[in-house]
């Protein structure tokens, strides 16, 4: 079934057993983003340690695509520096905008390549990007704090 391209097993696994989906008690920046067309929402907390490594936790309510995407992203970004996340972020956004033409670079995206099927469903791209846009917002804010 073509739907299986969208709902790859990795996505459903992350949806059922999300990672880092528990807001930490301490954080530098907290952002709250909603998808106004469907009401899905995410709260994302971000801080950087002395070495500039990311500590990211989140919580949210939403569909399998939005929640799994948050979980996969948290897994990818935690422990990395902001600089290291930039190419991953760009690759993911490019993949989402590819209208099904791109498959994504697995070396860069790791589990996030599972979302390649999403780009064929225009209505779901915003679901997949919800957490990523929240992260972008938070990372800009956290950099502002550092300076």
């Amino acid at each position, binding site marked *: 079934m073509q739907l299986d391209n969208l709902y790859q097993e990795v996505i459903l696994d992350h949806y059922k057993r999300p990672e880092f989906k528990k807001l930490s008690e301490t954080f530098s920046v907290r952002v709250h983003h909603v998808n106004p067309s*469907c009401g899905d929402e995410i709260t994302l907390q971000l801080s950087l340690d002395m070495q500039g490594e990311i500590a990211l936790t989140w919580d949210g309510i939403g569909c*399998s695509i939005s929640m799994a995407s948050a979980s996969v992203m948290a897994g990818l970004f935690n422990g990395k520096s902001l600089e290291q996340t930039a190419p991953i972020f760009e690759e993911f956004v490019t993949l989402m905008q590819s209208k099904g033409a791109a498959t994504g670079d697995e070396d860069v995206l790791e589990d996030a390549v599972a979302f390649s099927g999403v780009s064929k469903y225009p209505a779901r791209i915003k679901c997949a990007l919800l957490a990523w846009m929240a992260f972008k917002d938070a990372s800009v804010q956290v950099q502002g704090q550092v300076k």
Partner: protein
Amino acid sequence: MTNFNAREIRKEFPIFDRTVREGKRLIYLDSGATSQKPRVVIDAESHFYSFSNAAVHRGAHQLAEEATDAYEGARKIVADFLSAEVDEVVFTKNATESLNLLAYSLGSAKKESELHVTAGDRIVITEMEHHANLIPWQQLALRTGAELAWFPVDTEGRLDLSEIEKVITDRTKIVALTHQSNVLGTINPLDGIIGRAHRVGAIVILDACQSVPHMSINVKQLGVDFLAFSGHKSLGPTGVGVLWGRSELLADLPPFLFGGSMIESVTMTSATWAPAPRKFEAGVPNMAQAVGLGAALNYLNEIGLEAIHDHEMFLTQRLITGLEQNKSVQIFGPRNLEMRGGVVSFGVEDIHPHDLGQFLDSQGIAVRTGHHCAWPLNRKLGVTATTRASLYLYNEESDIDALLEGVADAQTYFGGK
């Protein structure tokens, strides 16, 4: 309902000739968002452009005359459809514009007018309003300093009118509510609300988007003061809506948009207005769309709104009964058919509405998922989103059965994987 032939009716809607998602039959259960169009409507709109296109109400030529006749003829059809007077029908872009027109015009009514809204006055709405009948009033309250109050929704999805005297106070100027909820399917009882509103001197504004296309409406019998509906939910084209208002109120109400066509006379420093409805129709109007709406209402009349309503209720019963048999399904809104229409929202345990909607789509079934532009109501229901099936004359029993089967298959798909 064996004598209502939805299968024959479907043949008059070209869109059902196509398939979706790799050859699947289109099962369209999203008429609450917008209805599909019969060929007579598409042809009427097209014919206007091919044959009579000219700017109405101006020009001395034959085409201008014919275009005006077609446009004003459509107004007459709408008026008859609502049992209203022809000059009480204002064409707008859609129901959202109809309601915004009212909110802005009421907000600029002169101090000496009974329609004037000011600080200390009250505007009453309900918790089940679509954003289109919520935000205009919320913002009018903010602009004028008036107080916004609302009727809550009870656990069955009906309005709680137990405190009606406290909600509609002596200072209430406006009561705006939906005839039928676009989420719950609830049809609101109007008599008590209108009675109380009129006793305190308030006007009653009815959002009839979900009722006019589906049941016979007589504005005089209803007793409301204003009514709004959309053409595109009534088999008509997009880009045309209707505002109906009692003539003495339309006469008292200042215009909302200014420009050509809506004036009586103009100087460099002042202007006076044409009588309603033209006072509210600035600029060259949506002529072809109005003509298409006229064709749509004629088509509905030919089939008969009573028959359509009965057919929808028959399908609604089948849908509710089927959903109730599924232990994982929760229905939001009344379970019985009394005072409800063919809109059914529901949730399925452990499946987010977007995922359910996506699965149903893969089976050719079009439903709506999300908050249905009624975010406060969703919060009251304690959900971020629901799945909604909304029915119309072209739906068949097999559409309902496909949906019920689709829901069960989605449970297997997401649960078993």
